[in-house]
């Protein structure tokens, strides 16, 4: 009790900035009740209205999950302003999700909130409780499992986009574990047990050498942040930002819509990048603050150190991803992607393999939270697919996927063969950027194009009514061919096929360092096609191995479930070092 009190005293004396508290809330390193107490102390000095909406929302999110105790708490401390502000939110959320479980009184023995709060706030107004809270007590029922499954996803969808938009890899800076991990802890009876564990067992976990290790890690991370900020050219970015902002503010800015839009997009990019770099600094500063505080104080504070360790861990992940995005500096890397999968020769086995690849890439796209659509799929006779086209909308989709181009080979016992013989099949994967129409301002001379329309045979015209309006365009000088079948009219298919062809040629031009499409060497294009890039062995052992990078894993199930990131990263690093070597 006395220790807890002193802890809170220290915190209230320290009076951490709101941003710091928000971070705590995100990672849930603090006991919610402690947080509440902090809020209240804040509120008594400033007003609760100073808190950002987002912060209040997050608090109420926490409150939902252990509403009873916290409502009691609000009652006990009689902080009417706080409660008035939070109650509608609580009630609303309570109505919208199935009710939270009635938590067992689970305050840890070493720490009772009431006593803590009483030590520095006014005595309770119990009449308030009867007026505001009876419904919550009586309606608490045990939850349905399904409600739990839907709760976290809805919560994390709600807050996800801002983060995902700022960064291609999700889960970057702010761990979403807040909303994801809570339900599982809800299921266990002791609602507060998980976050509380660190607080109650202060001495056992953290020995001095752990602290030194942490300090070292924090120092190393700090250095890393410094390096990254330098190499990313934070100062130049600032200058660029100023330049773009001046351009955007000019009167004639909207005269040319296309260039205006491009400027605005560049502006967002620069801003995002600067914010991200600032965020890195803020995070590492927080970790350093904790380490310094601990050094000044006599005793170690487990929760704080856990917090610091957590920050460092997450920050390093975010830094990894940032570095990776630096590898994606190709002119089209930022764009969305179109993947085209074609079954190789070999009938049903190959078609089934193409289908497995389709599923793999769709899963991958969904994991990245890209808008993933299978726009075209041509079914195999028995099973699987002959071909399929996926469109992935989202930043850097093409950059990540461009290395997937090539032939993918599978070795397994054939499921379509009574004897279960070992069978090798192939499927081809093509990747092209999903470019906005106006960025394709390349003119291809009409005579370089061979446009074929698939139409049902016979007399055509009025004699036939078929919905097949496929268009196939071949760029004669290079032999590059695209086909488009997913649109519902011939013209629409032709337009789409042409833009895909242009996208494909532009990428090839970049690969060959040709300044324009005319310079593309057709022979090189043909030779480059169909290079085998990866082996997937299901039998007699399990192994996925990339032919180019040598990266491999035995966890073939995860790979087929879309866990492609290690392969993608390995390839990007490989490509980067190759380009450096040249």
């Amino acid at each position, binding site marked *: 009790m006395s220790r807890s009190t002193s802890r809170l005293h220290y915190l209230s004396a320290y009076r951490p900035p709101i941003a710091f508290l928000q971070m705590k809330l995100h990672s849930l390193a603090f006991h919610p009740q402690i947080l509440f107490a902090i809020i209240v102390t804040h509120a008594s000095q400033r007003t609760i209205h100073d808190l950002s909406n987002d912060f209040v929302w997050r608090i109420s999110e926490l409150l939902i999950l252990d509403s009873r105790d916290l409502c009691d708490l609000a009652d006990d401390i009689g902080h009417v302003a706080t409660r008035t502000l939070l109650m509608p939110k609580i009630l609303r959320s309570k109505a919208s999700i199935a009710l939270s479980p009635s938590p067992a009184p689970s305050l840890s023995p070493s720490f009772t909130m009431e006593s803590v709060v009483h030590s520095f706030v006014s005595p309770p107004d119990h009449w308030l409780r009867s007026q505001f809270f009876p419904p919550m007590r009586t309606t608490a029922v045990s939850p349905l499992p399904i409600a739990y499954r839907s709760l976290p996803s809805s919560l994390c969808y709600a807050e996800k986009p801002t983060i995902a938009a700022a960064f291609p890899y999700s889960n970057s800076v702010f761990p979403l574990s807040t909303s994801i991990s809570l339900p599982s802890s809800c299921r266990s009876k002791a609602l507060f047990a998980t976050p509380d564990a660190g607080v109650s067992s202060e001495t056992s976990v953290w020995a001095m050498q752990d602290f030194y290790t942490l300090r070292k890690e924090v120092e190393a991370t700090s250095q890393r942040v410094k390096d990254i900020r330098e190499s990313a050219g934070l100062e130049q970015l600032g200058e660029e930002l100023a330049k773009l902002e001046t351009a955007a503010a000019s009167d004639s800015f909207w005269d040319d819509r296309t260039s205006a839009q491009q400027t605005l997009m560049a502006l967002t990019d620069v801003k995002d990048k600067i914010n991200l770099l600032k965020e890195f600094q803020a995070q590492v500063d927080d970790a350093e603050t904790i380490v310094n505080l601990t050094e000044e104080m006599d005793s170690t504070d487990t929760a704080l150190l856990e917090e610091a360790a957590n920050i460092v861990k997450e920050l390093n992940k975010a830094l990894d991803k940032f570095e990776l995005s630096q590898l994606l500096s190709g002119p089209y890397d930022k764009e969305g992607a179109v993947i085209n999968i074609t079954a190789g020769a070999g009938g049903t086995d190959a078609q089934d393999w193409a289908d497995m690849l389709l599923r793999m890439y769709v899963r991958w796209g969904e994991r990245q939270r890209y808008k993933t659509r299978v726009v075209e799929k041509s079914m195999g006779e028995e099973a699987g697919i002959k071909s399929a086209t996926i469109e992935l909308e989202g930043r850097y989709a093409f950059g990540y996927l461009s290395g997937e181009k090539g032939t993918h080979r599978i070795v397994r016992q054939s499921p379509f063969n009574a004897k279960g013989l070992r069978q090798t099949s192939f499927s081809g994967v093509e990747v092209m950027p999903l470019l906005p129409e106006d960025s394709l301002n390349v003119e291809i001379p009409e005579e370089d194009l061979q446009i074929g329309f698939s139409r049902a*045979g016979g007399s055509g*015209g009025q004699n036939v009514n078929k*919905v097949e309006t496929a268009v196939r365009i071949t760029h004669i000088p290079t032999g590059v061919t695209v086909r488009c079948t997913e649109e519902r*009219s*011939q013209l629409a298919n032709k337009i789409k096929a042409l833009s895909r062809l242009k996208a494909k040629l532009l990428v090839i031009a970049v690969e060959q360092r040709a300044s324009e499409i005319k310079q593309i060497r057709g022979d090189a294009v043909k030779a480059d096609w169909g290079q085998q890039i990866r082996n997937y062995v299901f039998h007699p052992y399990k192994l996925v191995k990339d032919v180019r990078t040598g990266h491999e894993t035995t966890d073939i199930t995860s790979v087929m479930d879309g866990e492609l990131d290690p392969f993608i990263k390995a390839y990007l690093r490989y490509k980067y070092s190759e380009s450096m070597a040249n």
Partner: protein
Amino acid sequence: MNLAILARSSPLFTTSRILHRSIASKPFSCCSISNSPISINPKTPLFLRPPTFSATLSDLQKWQNWAKSIASSVKSSFTDSDNGPNSNDLHRELNWLIEDALENPQSLLTHNEFEIDYVLRLRADLDELYLLWKQRIEKRRPFQYVVGCEHWRDLVVSVEEGVLIPRPETELMVDLVDDVIKENEDLKEGLWVDLGTGSGAIAIGIVRILGDFGRVIATDLSHVAVQVASFNVNRYNLQDKISVKQGSWFEPLSGFEGRVAGLVSNPPYIPSGHVSGLQAEVGRHEPILALDGGEDGMADLLHLCNGAALMLKSGGFFAFETNGEDQCRFLVDHMETIHNGSFHNLEIIPDFAGIQRFVTGIRS
């Protein structure tokens, strides 16, 4: 010269009208949505209906799996019997049906198997979807009638029983007009005519490439076609530029002799003898009035040629769709001999599949 002489009055004309009536008035047997085809108001295409129905994801998936499996069971049987669609074509159609029937088709993809209770909003009752797909497979009802629309060029035109479904080949007609008005700016601001407009697709396609003063008159003998064409014209907000008139070929055009800048038509051109052997979607469901071109399929085409000589102004352009090479040659011969000197730049233009499909020319 009296226009009535030009109006077609062959015995075939009467029979085909009767045939059309008999088809049109026959109610669609198992069709619960049967607004009678001779309704005054055209049916609303599925994709434009309000999403007032709903179904759970699992129920919709059940329907989808059922529809997929009966589509798969077709294999190549339709193709073998009358060059109809195979399973692949039908799977594609099924996806489009889902696209049109769901308020938010993406939701089918983004929700996984754990959310079977997720409720989707539909533009048609699930029972109706079962019925529609059954009609598609068992009755060979054309997909475009099932969903009530056809994507044609960059347009989505409403269609229903009694109106010919515009064909992909015909998309090229608009390109032909585009080419000619680029050469002759004068035609761009003139009066254009689409004879036998059907759904109004060509008229709408053309008017959108004409200039500010360009106008189109679209005619059709069929009442249903006039209704549907008017609906489509209104939907694209072109009622000030296109007037849809009911009547046989040139009948509604009296007073415009020698003043027409361009004349296009996709008239019935299938020889009567071929009609019975047509793909079921076409022969059993599409209006015979729009298909049957008489014994050699040339009855209406010849009539149009004669009319073109009368209606077009000097420098005016015409384009007709035909059944193929033989008809194209015949038409060109006819124009060169009968209307000697009336036309120049007569051309035969192939469609995407390489079949000689269009005859074009300029009035001297």
